[in-house]
């Protein structure tokens, strides 16, 4: 899929040559559960990249400034800050453990020198402030340089403390803790375009919060049936519209997406729009509903489209048309004839995420065997790439990968039966402005950049 990006035309995903840039994480064969990355997110400028893991830790990487003296460190990401966001908790009433796994991280737009992000586990959302300190005061009156208090009666003269530079220290502190509003497990958080509110969604309910208020939230969607025996559908993801602060969407386990308008009523149980692709009843099987379950929903940056990810495909929807998607991209259709074993090993329940490129011209999502897929919406071309340490020479180009289904396997292809289903790429992120992507492969974080960059 090589080719130079055109002179004046916007380059699509496949005009780019994706190259290995960096890989973070240990090389151990034995992966500790806590090290499994559970979320990846760039901030609004793309200068910061946050990861959350099953051990409740957040690691933030910062992009190095382009430096003439070190031309090869072309925008590399290095560790900026790391902290323990959530710890395991125990619900004594139900004798249930509350996992510390970070389900989602969402950045707030930057408003001052500090950076803010929301991170959540199954039950509690926290607002973290990440700030830099590069100065420290010296020459206090009441205490020594080593902090010991001076005897006030011995002080004969006063001095003004002076600020002296110190090595950069990045501090993370929890500024708000939003707890006890979800009976079920939180799967999504989304910051509103008003920069004042955000939503949190669990399996059955969605709540609206104000960033300043921790002891109160408003329930805006409630899908809990009066009788739990009648439960047929759960909420799988939710997101606010990027520009319209009154609009949000939520997706379901039945493959439907609802768009809600908060101006219409306080409780948005009735949707404003209902997106569902009609199903051919003759093709229905035991697996139909399971594989139609939407694992992720994302608005385009433009706000005109949204994308849904189900088990085998990614669909792009025009918000003005509810009846069917405008694009359907097959991620790994060859798995359709493996559904029985994928059901037995639970892989059929894997929740893959998806993301848009900054210009919305391309979309990306993960697959198995550490493969990930990119679809160029303009050229209609797609490519399968692999996140692997075997291809990790600096600036090495990624070679497109191919899965073969038939008996005849070409030399560079891999057969469906040889795919490693334990190597899943569930979380990927695309830099908001440039062609840099972050791909989480179990406990390793890969960063790829394009050659043109």
């Amino acid at each position, binding site marked *: 899929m090589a080719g130079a990006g055109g002179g004046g035309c916007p380059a699509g995903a496949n005009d780019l040559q994706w190259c290995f840039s*960096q*890989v*973070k*994480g*240990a090389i151990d064969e034995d992966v*500790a559960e*806590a*090290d499994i*990355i559970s979320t990846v997110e760039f901030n609004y400028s793309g200068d910061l990249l946050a*990861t959350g*893991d099953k*051990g*409740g*830790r957040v*690691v933030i990487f910062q992009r190095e400034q382009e430096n003439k003296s070190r031309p090869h460190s072309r925008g590399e990401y290095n*560790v900026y800050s*790391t902290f*323990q966001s959530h*710890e*395991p908790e*125990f619900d004594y009433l*139900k*004798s*249930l*453990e*509350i*996992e510390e796994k970070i389900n989602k991280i969402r950045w707030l737009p930057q408003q001052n020198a500090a950076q803010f992000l929301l991170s959540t586990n*199954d039950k509690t959302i926290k607002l973290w402030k990440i700030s830099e300190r590069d100065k420290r005061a010296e020459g206090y009156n009441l205490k020594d340089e080593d902090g010991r208090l001076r005897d006030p009666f011995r002080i004969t003269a006063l001095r003004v403390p002076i600020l002296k530079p110190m090595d950069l220290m990045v501090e993370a502190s929890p500024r708000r803790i939003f707890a006890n509003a979800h009976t*079920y*497990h939180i799967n999504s958080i989304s910051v509103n375009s008003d920069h004042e509110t955000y939503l949190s969604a669990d*399996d059955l309910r969605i709540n609206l919060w104000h960033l300043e208020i921790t002891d109160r939230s408003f329930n805006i969607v409630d899908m809990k049936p009066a009788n739990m*025996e009648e*439960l*047929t*559908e*759960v909420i799988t993801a939710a997101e606010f519209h990027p520009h319209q602060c009154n609009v949000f969407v939520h997706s379901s*386990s039945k493959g439907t997406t609802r768009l809600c308008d908060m101006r219409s009523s306080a409780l948005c149980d009735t949707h404003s729009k209902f997106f569902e692709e009609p199903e051919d009843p003759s*093709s*229905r*099987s*035991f*697996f*139909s*509903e*399971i594989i139609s379950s939407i694992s992720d929903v994302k608005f385009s940056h433009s706000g005109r489209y949204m994308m849904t990810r189900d088990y085998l495909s990614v669909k792009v929807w025009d918000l003005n048309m509810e009846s069917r998607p405008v694009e359907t991209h*097959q991620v790994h*259709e*060859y798995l*359709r*004839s*493996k*559904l*029985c074993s994928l*059901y*037995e090993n639970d892989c059929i329940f894997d929740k893959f995420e998806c993301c848009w490129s900054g210009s919305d011209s391309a979309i990306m999502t993960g697959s198995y065997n550490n493969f990930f897929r990119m679809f160029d919406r303009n050229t209609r071309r797609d490519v399968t790439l692999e996140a692997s340490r075997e291809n990790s020479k600096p600036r090495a180009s990624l070679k497109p990968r*191919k*899965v073969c*289904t038939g008996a005849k396997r070409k030399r560079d292809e891999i057969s469906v039966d040889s795919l490693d289903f334990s190597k899943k790429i569930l979380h990927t992120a695309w830099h908001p402005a440039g062609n840099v992507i972050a791909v989480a492969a179990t*406990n390793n*974080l890969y960063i790829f950049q394009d050659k043109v960059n």
Partner: protein
Amino acid sequence: AGGPGCVVCYWLLGDTQEKEGILPERAEEAKLKAKYPSLGQKPGGSDFLMKRLQKGQKYFDSGDYNMAKAKMKNKQLPSAGPDKNLVTGDHIPTPQDLPQRKSSLVTSKLAGGQVE
């Protein structure tokens, strides 16, 4: 449909017992039902949802355990099925079912070491 790596399916009218004629999904469904004949008649739905809502490690509770034992008297306590994490019916975690202790919290490996 069509194109590299895509399974092309043909409907054969009439004899639906011919495996070649069935959609790959239906063939997979037949495989599954052959392995697990008692699998619910309704398509994958509520069972999964309830399992999903109950996600979480249930721990040993001596109060529950002793009360259940007293109720059962001579009968055996229902033990954990193949899926130890699924809490169903009267299942109460027993000391034998206890999960391994989690290891202590340390700094993420993403933040340490040289790598690259």
